[in-house]
């Protein structure tokens, strides 16, 4: 029996709730089970893999609370290492990227740009599609 194929679709930015973080956890679990895993970044999801996030680890007073630095957990690093986890394909919606003024060089992870028609094909080709 061939391996089950799973497409993880990320539609929200890393700062919009916990969708991206929870999707990443599920994706890593799928990779650990050696399933055939792909990721697609769509709509605001393209911001998850944008370069330059978290560079301003500021030490301004507003980022300090009772002596501790308020430092949100950054998702850009684990998402940049998707292939290392075992993710086999990374797709990015071309239209979503353009609509946000971004280009392929702005992203941290090697990817294949796909059109809306190709996304429809991807969804059809995978056994399971999980949207986060």
């Amino acid at each position, binding site marked *: 029996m061939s391996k089950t194929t799973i497409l993880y679709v990320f539609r929200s930015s890393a700062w919009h709730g916990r969708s991206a973080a*929870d999707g990443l956890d599920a994706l890593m679990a799928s990779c650990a089970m050696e399933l055939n895993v792909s990721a697609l970044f769509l709509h605001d999801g393209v911001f998850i893999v944008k370069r330059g996030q978290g560079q301003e680890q500021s030490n301004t007073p507003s980022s300090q609370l009772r002596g501790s630095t308020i430092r949100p957990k950054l998702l850009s690093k684990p998402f940049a290492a998707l292939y290392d986890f075992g993710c086999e394909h990374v797709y990015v919606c071309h239209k979503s990227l353009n609509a946000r003024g971004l280009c392929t060089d702005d992203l941290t992870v090697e990817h294949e740009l796909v059109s809306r028609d190709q996304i429809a094909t991807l969804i059809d080709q995978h056994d399971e599609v999980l949207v986060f």
Partner: protein
Amino acid sequence: MKHSSIQQESFTILVTGSVLGSQANESALRFAIAALEQGKSVKQVFFYSEGASVANSKLLPLADELHATKLWQGLQRDYGLDLSVCIASAERRGVVGAQSADDHQIDGQNLADGFSVVGLAQFHNAMLSSSHLMRFA
């Protein structure tokens, strides 16, 4: 062909929407009831991300509001439905089982009866053994 080796129609239900902030539980409950009443197999209902909020035994909706926790518990009693909650999602939202309460020295558990805390591997096992995955967000 999806899961060609799985002969019988069976479902895994994934709930990711919060108990109050979305219609996820109402829709998932309607789907589960319809499936079970038609004799279909529901392998697991997995509550992930915001979905874990429904497993809090101390939720007290008003009398004329949907009490999703109680409705899920009813299905669990009537059909032996597997109600599994992602342990990480649950603990982030203050839903703790007896073991977690003990481990973290928290006074009392609040995991609703009938629900069990599991890891993502159990969800994958259910998903892979079902012909259909239904997600309610």
